């Protein structure tokens, strides 16, 4: 596996094995994520992408073998948007349960504007459309200071323009010394190196 051997990896997994429902999803999966890398986990539906990401971020603690070492604050965005339907986008961001930062009002407004939600800052989130709802969650990417991002299908329900914008952001984050591990069923169009982790074959390439 490549990467700058001088620095220590942000995230390292050692011989991860997972069996679910009697099917072996992956075996002896070892890889290291260094600053400046963008990893895309690939695989068909049911290949084990979500399971892997949950193991990597520490939410799954039972039922798998191997070890994960994480040396950096991380930001995890999962399938569910973690957006409270009764709160407004502004409140959702400023009182976020993740408690990783205290953001000023202007920061929050500019993040919401970046995800195309200016004008929607103060309506309850349950009146937003499916894509807008997910965008509130994505706004956290513009606020986060964590170096390591673990994103599970961040493009789901997002329109084409939104996907382009997000890809630009991911590139910028990686170029600025961050790292991204993400899943997506779409091919990424970013102008930086993408490393693939193909779960279908169970190999890290």
């Amino acid at each position, binding site marked *: 596996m490549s990467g700058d051997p001088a620095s220590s990896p942000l995230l390292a997994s050692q011989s991860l094995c997972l069996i679910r429902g009697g099917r072996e999803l992956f075996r002896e999966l070892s890889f290291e994520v260094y600053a400046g890398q963008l990893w895309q986990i690939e695989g068909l539906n049911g290949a084990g992408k979500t399971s892997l990401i949950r193991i990597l971020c520490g939410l799954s603690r039972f039922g798998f073998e191997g070890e994960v070492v994480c040396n950096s*604050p991380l930001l*995890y965005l999962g399938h*569910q948007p973690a957006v409270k339907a*009764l709160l407004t986008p502004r409140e959702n961001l400023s009182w*976020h349960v993740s*408690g*990783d930062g*205290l953001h000023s009002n202007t920061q929050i407004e500019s993040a919401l504007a970046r995800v195309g939600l200016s004008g929607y800052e103060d309506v309850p989130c349950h009146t937003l459309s499916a894509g807008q709802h997910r965008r509130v969650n994505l706004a956290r990417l513009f606020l986060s200071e964590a170096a390591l991002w673990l994103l599970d299908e961040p493009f789901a329900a997002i329109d084409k323009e939104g996907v382009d914008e997000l890809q630009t952001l991911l590139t910028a984050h990686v170029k600025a010394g961050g790292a991204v591990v993400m899943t997506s069923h779409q091919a990424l169009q970013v102008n930086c190196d993408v490393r693939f982790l193909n779960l279908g074959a169970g190999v890290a390439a």
Partner: protein
Amino acid sequence: MSAPGTLQFCIRLLRRQLLLAVRRPIEISNPLVFFAMVVALFPLGLGPALENLAGFAAGTLWIIALLSNLLTSDAVFRSDFEDGSLEQLLLSPQPLYLSVLAYIGAHWLMTGLLLALASPVFALLLNLPGQALGTLVMSLLLGTAVLSLLGGIGAALTVGLKRGGMLTSLLILPLYMPVLIFGSAAVQGAVSGIPAGPYLAILAAMLCLAIALAPLAIAAGLRISIDA
């Protein structure tokens, strides 16, 4: 951006939970309305035994408080689990012990505190003698806090299950019983002129124990539930 202090974070969580409750005014008034309705149900159901009601007012009020706590504590973490907020809370760098206390605190403010403050009205409806009102309020204040903490344990353990609704009650009703016994004994004592101090002291001791231990169990339960 600046890193928030732990205390600041907890206060933010508390405000968030309270605001969520306030957004649906029905949520706040509901325990009260439930309380009022069951107070009304009792004479209807027990009919001819009405004159006995005064003697039973203390216990009845406490049972209703307990039930209305039971009904609401199931939901403390459920919506956060369903929309993914709970995952984010567990990944947060903040100490889970304190975050959990903020959730429970908000729950208690919206149910226990309100119930305790409103209880004299219901007590009068059930003919509870006036000299026991103070004890009733005090015992409810202390007791419902313990109930909220214990209820949180059940809620945390069952939040990941597909349909845990009534399982929670099975898990925590046995734990509620000592609180019920001391709480109603305190009020009953006050009715018959026995000083309620010792009972209230025991309730306070239970509260201390619960504050110290319950958040640990809740935190452990949440970590398990998120993984189920």
